[in-house]
């Protein structure tokens, strides 16, 4: 009708098709993917954005950037695999008695802004944690009574005889007094310009990637090989395999084909155990409160098969010693049969079940009234490896006549169920702290055994035995290695005989390494550090590497 507003239908159609294509056509010639790190700098897959990075370098924030712990140093760093301590800001510590720890503070250390580091920074840090208990992530002030400085010595007076406390104290990251004394709210501080003592300082920061540059003032700068670390926010399996990472922490499907296959000459992996993935029986409920029943469950399982199905054969089956092997081999109680390993034995399992009052009737295991034994296993939704393990358990127990249901609440609800004791059997993980005392204390100490309905933070199975509490108390108070070994052996026997948790397989620490640019990564042959990319463990690795070919 109005000639000017008339539109050709065909032209419109062409236009709309063109619009569809336009979005895809505009940069066909450019190659995708993020650029690999430049020479001399190390590409690290350690920090995952969600999906981008929030800038938070507060060393005491639970959601801090992972790189924070590559910059701040603690007094000493513990290798969580074998518990060995390496001195950093302290040169060592002594314990005049079981209630006192004295740290000798290193001299000649400078903060990255050039100001000298001293024992008063250490005292300030601990005072900061005392004033803001939200920052006390390691729970130092649950064990320390007071802190005193005398020259280069810092003395901690403990609340009770507490030998393992030193290991908690020494992990505290030390912050500079001259910076942090003017921070108004340390809990909400995001610390955009970290002043640190460690091997690296913050380089550039963007929401998709940040870099750490070598600290020129570092007190052992000669031991630091990489001039720059690059930490991208996206570290998918596809990225890790294709972008030439030097070090990544990532569960990798078919690792030999994917990660190693990407560069057979240089790429390697090491998956040491980081925890005992276990079934926690709810000890407040029948029949789980019967040790014979727990033994029956334990002998009914083929742990190797469970380990293989859950973790693609990357980890070993766990034994009933409560230790992580081979890391903690030195501490193993040699009196345990087969070093604590349990090989499936159906007859033995049936004998134990019979003692607990469950007998075989046809294909099913029934109680005195003839009803089939049935219970549920609770695991968190989305933990696919655990689910595979639980499904294997379900199959193995079905074969012996038990009906197992799988309960998969969301992670938050799973955690709530675990903490308040609302489950029959629940998946969980224990151990791996690097301290025998802490590992067993968390698993067995009756002080954590809150009544069902009241949340607890450890000992989810609610194990309670005054004799075991006594062993733990004795272990806490002794600094004699022979005595420690003896008490540790007793605790292993408790775990083996009383089955407070049915350990099934080791949770792996998924370390992927490339020696193209840097060599000296931790490995099975040289386990000087764990492959963990978080906490202070990376300090051990970053001060141990050398440039390839140098």
């Amino acid at each position: 009708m109005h000639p000017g507003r008339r539109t050709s239908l065909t032209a419109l159609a062409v236009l709309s098709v063109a619009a569809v294509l336009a979005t895809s056509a505009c940069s066909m010639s450019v190659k995708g993917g993020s650029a690999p790190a430049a020479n001399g700098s190390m590409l690290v897959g350690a920090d995952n954005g969600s999906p981008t990075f929030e800038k938070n370098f507060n060393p005491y924030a639970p959601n801090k950037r992972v790189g924070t712990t590559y910059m701040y140093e603690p007094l000493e760093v513990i290798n969580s695999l074998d518990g060995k301590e390496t001195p950093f800001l302290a040169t060592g510590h002594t314990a005049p008695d079981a209630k006192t720890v004295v740290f000798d503070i290193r001299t000649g250390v400078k903060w990255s802004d050039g100001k000298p580091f001293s024992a008063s920074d250490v005292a300030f840090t601990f005072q900061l944690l005392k004033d803001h208990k939200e920052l006390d992530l390691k729970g130092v002030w649950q064990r320390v009574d007071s802190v005193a400085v005398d020259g280069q010595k810092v003395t901690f007076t403990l609340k009770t005889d507490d030998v393992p406390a030193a290991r908690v104290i020494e992990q505290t990251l030390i912050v500079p007094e001259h910076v942090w004394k003017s921070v108004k709210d340390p809990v909400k501080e995001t610390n955009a310009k970290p002043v640190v003592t460690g091997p690296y300082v913050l380089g550039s920061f963007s929401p998709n990637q940040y870099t750490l540059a070598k600290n020129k003032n570092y007190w052992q700068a000669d031991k630091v090989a990489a001039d720059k670390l690059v930490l991208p926010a996206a570290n998918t399996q596809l990225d890790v395999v294709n972008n030439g990472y030097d070090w990544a922490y990532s569960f990798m499907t078919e690792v030999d084909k994917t990660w190693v296959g990407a560069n057979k000459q240089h790429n390697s992996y090491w998956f040491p155990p980081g925890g005992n993935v276990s079934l926690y029986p709810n000890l407040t409920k029948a029949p789980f409160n019967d040790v014979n029943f727990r033994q029956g469950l334990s002998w009914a399982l083929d742990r190797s098969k469970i380990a293989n199905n859950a973790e693609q054969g990357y980890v070993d089956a766990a034994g009933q010693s409560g230790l992580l092997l081979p890391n903690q081999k030195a501490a193993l109680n040699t009196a345990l049969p087969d070093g604590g390993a349990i090989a499936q034995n159906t007859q033995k399992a049936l004998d134990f079940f019979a003692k607990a009052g469950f007998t075989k009737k046809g294909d099913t295991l029934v109680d005195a009234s003839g009803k089939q034994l049935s219970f549920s296993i609770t695991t968190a939704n989305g933990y696919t490896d655990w689910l595979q393990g639980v499904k294997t358990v379900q199959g193995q127990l079905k074969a012996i006549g038990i009906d197992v249901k799988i309960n998969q609440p969301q992670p938050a609800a799973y955690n709530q169920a675990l903490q308040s004791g609302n489950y029959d059997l629940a998946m969980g993980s224990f151990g791996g702290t690097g301290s025998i005392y802490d590992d067993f204390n968390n698993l067995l100490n009756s002080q954590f055994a809150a009544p069902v309905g009241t949340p607890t933070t450890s000992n989810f199975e609610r194990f309670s035995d005054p004799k075991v509490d006594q062993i733990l108390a004795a272990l806490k108070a002794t600094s004699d290695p022979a005595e420690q070994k003896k008490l540790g052996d007793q605790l292993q026997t408790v775990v083996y005989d009383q089955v407070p948790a049915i350990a099934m397989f080791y949770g792996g620490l998924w370390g992927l390494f490339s020696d193209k640019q840097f060599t000296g990564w931790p490995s099975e042959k040289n386990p000087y550090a764990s492959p963990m990319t978080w906490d202070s463990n990376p300090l051990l690795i970053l001060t141990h590497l050398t440039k390839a070919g140098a």
Partner: protein
Amino acid sequence: MNFVLKKVGLLLLTLWAAITLNFLLPRLMPGSPADAAIAKLAQSGPVSASVQAAIKAQLGVPTGNIWEQYVSYLGNLAHFDFGVSFTFFPQSVSSLISAALPWTIVLVGVVTIVSFVCGTLLGVLAAWKRGTWLDTLPTVGGAFVSGFPYFWTALLLLFFLGYVAGLFPRSGAYGATVTPNFSIEFFGDALYHSILPALTILITSLGGWVLGMRNNMINTLGEDYVTFAEANGLKPKTVALRYAARNALLPNLTAFGLALGAVVGGSLLVERVFNYPGLGYLLYNAVTNQDYPLMQALFLMITVSVLLANFIVDILYGALDPRTRR
């Protein structure tokens, strides 16, 4: 006027209901934000008692009984104060949303409009030329493609175009070393990164518009006034666009209003697959981490924008189609 007032009243009532539900729903979920944070940590190893205590202290898990929480929630809402996020502590919810909002609005918003316009035009064309290849191609193709699940299309594109062909970046909204600013380079980079997610949304949503428009159009083409216009000797193009398409557009317009309202919800699956820092990804984070303040603010935004879009479409309808005013 009465019509508009009625609609406004209805809007306010639904708004209150939505706000209240929005308050209640996250609290009905089992577990607390601290539980979620601890469960997340527990994946990489056992969490010690002191870490758990510190997390609880930092998150300051909600205090007061449910009524006190409700009253303070309404009060804060009046000031647009959504509080501090638990997951991204100590960031405020408002800052997180304002960082994510532009990415989603631009990506999902633009693609929704492009998809609606293209789809509608293709639908008109298909109905007008029905029986020819111009009909079968978009209709069959649209029906086929719109059956693809979002995430599956996204993964296919990611693998073939992003990985095998290496044509486009596989994740993020902009390059690794780029800091967002107002330069040409940044916009180019952002555009380049948006291609795969945009394509995913376009592919999966286009078919719906084509089919909807074609069906409406075919109904309209059978109407007496179209026959009358043709009998009067008007040009076919005039009849198609100015008589048939205009009337056939009405139902599609409603759907478009709703789709625009839903843009604010982001496109969760697509953003998740491509690590796109939009509202959908933020919502995913909020829900998986039991982040009440963030969840509430996001749900509220989504509800309010859908309600507003609905309201606007209602009012527009009243203007476009006098019959609905009765």
